[in-house]
């Protein structure tokens, strides 16, 4: 066990898997000599060499396309997209190619790649360094989407993703990289892709979140606990596959449901969670399914007042929790 922040847990997972399996390599813009803009691959270039820690051109479709080809020929690439905001040129390679290769070949071919991408706002990144892209990709059968919120999960889920036989999009909230630290198991620590985790037990309402919003929901739940309102916080961790059972079990216990994400409201992944609850736990509901999300504007502004306006935060979430609890 060692105390780690999420950025260090990500680095440990990659390093350990590269030591374990020589087929694993990392590739992306500045992942080599620089060690990544956030330092996720710091030290790996010196440890594993240029061929396995590959600096690529600034061309996201090319990064993912090369990773797909390398996987077809036996390697296990971890492709880093420097910011999720820049993943869009690779959408076709991820969605039409990686996610469909097994299906279109009826199981003959597979693409075991991991695409890592820092995402999310609250860091004054403006329109092009703040985006949340999970809803685009969680819609795609054939692709797994993982969004850890804690360091130990980040390590365990990333190691599982690297060993997964199918493509995995691994979204790391950039504000969480250095937000919290915790004890992270050394060595063979694997967290299965799929199951959600209840971060805080509660009885009055269920709150579902991922990434940074998990932390904000926990803070809001703490505030409500002082007023005698017990909130259950569920960290989904994986959006595809989605742990429907844990979601429904929680709602059946509390009777009320809230989904929190910083992606904008309309068509966000919260809508899918709300639909599942409405369809399968309708009889248990004692109030409307509520979503707390970013507003429906094109992206997060750079200036402070408008960034704060965009981002859900513990105060906004706590207010929504109180309102739902009182319904």
């Amino acid at each position, binding site marked *: 066990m060692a105390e780690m922040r999420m950025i260090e847990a990500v680095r440990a997972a990659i390093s350990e898997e590269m030591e374990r399996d020589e087929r694993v390599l990392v590739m992306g813009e500045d992942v080599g000599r620089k060690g990544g803009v956030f330092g996720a691959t710091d030290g790996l270039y010196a440890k594993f060499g240029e061929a396995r820690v590959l600096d690529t051109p600034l061309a996201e479709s090319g990064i993912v*396309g*090369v990773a797909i*080809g390398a996987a077809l020929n036996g390697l*296990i690439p971890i492709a880093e997209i420097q910011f999720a905001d820049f993943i869009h040129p690779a959408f*076709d390679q991820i969605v039409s190619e990686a996610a469909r290769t097994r299906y279109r070949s009826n199981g003959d071919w597979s693409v075991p790649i991991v695409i890592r991408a820092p995402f999310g706002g609250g860091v004054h990144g403006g329109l092009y360094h703040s985006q949340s892209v999970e809803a685009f990709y969680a819609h795609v059968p054939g692709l797994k989407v993982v969004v850890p919120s804690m360091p130990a999960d980040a390590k365990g889920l990333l190691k599982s993703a690297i060993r*997964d036989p199918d493509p995995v999009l691994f979204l790391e909230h950039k504000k969480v990289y250095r937000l919290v630290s915790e004890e992270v198991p050394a060595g063979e620590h694997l967290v299965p892709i799929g199951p959600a985790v209840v971060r805080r037990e509660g009885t009055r309402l269920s709150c579902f979140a991922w990434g940074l919003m998990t932390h904000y929901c926990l803070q809001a739940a703490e505030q409500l606990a002082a007023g005698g309102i017990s909130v259950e916080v569920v960290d989904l961790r994986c959006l595809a596959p989605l742990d429907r059972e844990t979601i429904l079990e929680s709602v059946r216990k509390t009777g009320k449901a809230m989904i929190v994400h910083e992606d904008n409201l309309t068509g966000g992944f919260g809508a899918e969670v709300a639909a599942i609850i409405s369809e399968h736990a309708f009889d248990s509901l004692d109030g409307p399914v509520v979503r707390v999300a970013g507003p429906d504007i094109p992206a997060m502004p750079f200036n402070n007042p408008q960034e704060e306006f965009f981002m859900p935060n513990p105060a906004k979430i706590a207010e929504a929790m109180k309102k739902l609890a009182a319904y």
Partner: protein
Amino acid sequence: MPITSQGQCQRGTLGVLAPKVQSTERMTAPHTLLALYHTMVMARAIERRLWVVEHTEPVNGYLRVSGLEAVQVAAAAALRPGRDWIVPCPTDLALCLAVGLSPLDVMLAVFGRADDPASGGRQTPGAFGSRAARVVMTSAAAGRHVVQAAGIAYATKVSGRDEVTLVCTDERGVQSGDWHEGINFAGAHALPLICLIEDRSRSEGPIAQHSNGSTVDRAEAYGLAGETIDGGDFDTALAAFGRASDRARSQGGGTVIHALAVELTSKAPGGGLRPPEELEALAGQDPIDRMRRRLLEAGVLEAADDEQIQRDCASVVAAAVEEATAAPSPDGPRALDNVFSRAQEHG
């Protein structure tokens, strides 16, 4: 060797030959040339038959492949099937026949049958692929596979294996961003990659989609060798692929081969040949006619043998249509299969 039995055709020209080491001498041996010519004729027979099938059966089988047969079998001849990688585009029928695809495989795909070995009837016809044969199944998006081919070649390089990757595209694929990203990556890492551009646009006049410079100029700017060839001439193409594969195998980097070919078929719905006056202008340029003349002049092929080859190919294709027609379709709910692996980890 006899080259007209259905069984041999179904295993593919070079699958029958199964050479451990390719060489120009071996690939120009009489029996090899006959086998490759047979493959060219078979590809043409399949295309022609599909024109008929599409009008009589509820299938979508139109493959516009005429004119590319010579350059495709030459490419196959320069590779080692099962060892080198092929990343084809939907017009690479003769190439895929040469490395193992059978006429029955084609028809099973055309009819969307469960036994279609490439995709179980999921992909539209023309998306050939086989992991065992190292023929990569690609999508319908032009150019996307070029950057993937660069990734295949990168894996070859870092693994230190002796493999060459051939990726094919038509002239439109060259305009895609992924072609440029893939060729740039291949040049930057001197990868063992051959990119074949099967260009039939000259038959219809050039399309002004870039301001200046040939495809070869652009390839060379990215650090690859490049040459423009007469894609209708087998010997010219075989020599070019020989140079390119030698370069790739000796760590000399990649090559773009820009093959100019003729377009013999109409782009009108339902296919068919181009109008007679247009075909007349292309007289003597049909690659199968050119290969036939070459073999007749060299004494490798007799006229009677040629007639037999034509009849046998038509017969094999007709039998394949009959068998595919009778083959079962996949069950509807099996559409849920193979979204993800059932295994927890890859091997």
